[in-house]
């Protein structure tokens, strides 16, 4: 069952039943929203945190704060904001971000990075997977909020409006965070080029 596909699911009625402390309705609500939450959690999962634990935490927060939901935004947006802030809290709790070093890269990753730095195109599927790994490692160097914005913008190609709906942040804040992330990435690439030369 997915949020997009399941049009028959009566969310309003289900929420009413959950508010009346109907456990069966709560179970249905969790099943209905699970695909939405798991996508966010998988996309922003901190190291050493189990996706099931984080998903459960998101749902527990959702039930705890259910009385605060006023209906000003669609319920799935409201839940996705809880998921996003929960992931950011966990990413922030990691405090120390692992240093990005050439020595820690696999052979393919190093090759892809080399190509990217020297403007040669790399193309096969293995390179794409290595590139995705590299992107994750580079994103780990950013602040959690900046990381989330740049990941949604550049990797998932979401629009500012979509990010605003997903996070609840205003457009200016999203732009500031994207700017900060890009500045940091630029600095990182400069450092990597220098290290490569040395």
């Amino acid at each position: 069952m997915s949020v997009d596909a399941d049009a028959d699911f009566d969310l309003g009625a289900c929420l009413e039943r959950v508010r009346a402390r109907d456990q069966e309705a709560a179970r249905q609500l969790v099943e209905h929203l699970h695909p939405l939450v798991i996508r966010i959690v998988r996309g922003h999962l901190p190291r050493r945190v189990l996706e099931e634990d984080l998903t459960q935490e998101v749902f527990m927060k959702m039930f705890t704060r259910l009385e605060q939901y006023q209906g000003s935004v669609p319920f799935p947006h409201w839940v996705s904001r809880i998921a996003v802030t929960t992931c950011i809290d966990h990413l922030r709790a990691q405090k120390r971000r692992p240093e990005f070093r050439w020595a820690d890269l696999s052979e393919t990753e190093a090759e892809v990075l080399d190509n990217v730095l020297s403007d040669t195109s790399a193309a096969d599927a293995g390179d794409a997977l290595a590139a995705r790994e590299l992107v994750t490692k580079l994103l780990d160097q950013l602040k959690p909020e900046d990381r989330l914005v740049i990941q949604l913008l550049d990797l998932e190609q979401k629009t500012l409006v979509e990010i605003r709906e997903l996070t609840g942040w205003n457009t200016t804040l999203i732009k500031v965070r994207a700017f900060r992330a890009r500045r940091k990435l630029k600095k990182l690439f400069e450092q990597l080029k220098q290290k490569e030369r040395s």
Partner: protein
Amino acid sequence: MSTNPPEWSRLVSLARRAPRETRDEAAPYGFATRVAALALGGRAPWMDASLFSRYGLRALGVSCVLAAACAAATFKPVITAIENEAAALSETPEEVVDTIDAGSA
């Protein structure tokens, strides 16, 4: 909005070509039941925590007021009892006086 560093743009466009995740997005078996039971059923740890945070400080305040009231109510009898005890101790019992006299003779 500022533009991406070219290296990042190249890397990210390559990363987007990686095959999409095919993992199941449905809730694992029993997950929804467990979460629903935790949230609406028995007492979850987060509920205890919120009860403690809600009533903990209030209970501390009430217990302080009660302790002060008890001390105020029992202050006079306690002081009187201590004074009586002190007075009784200051009087030397007759048996002791007799013993001392017998010793000196």
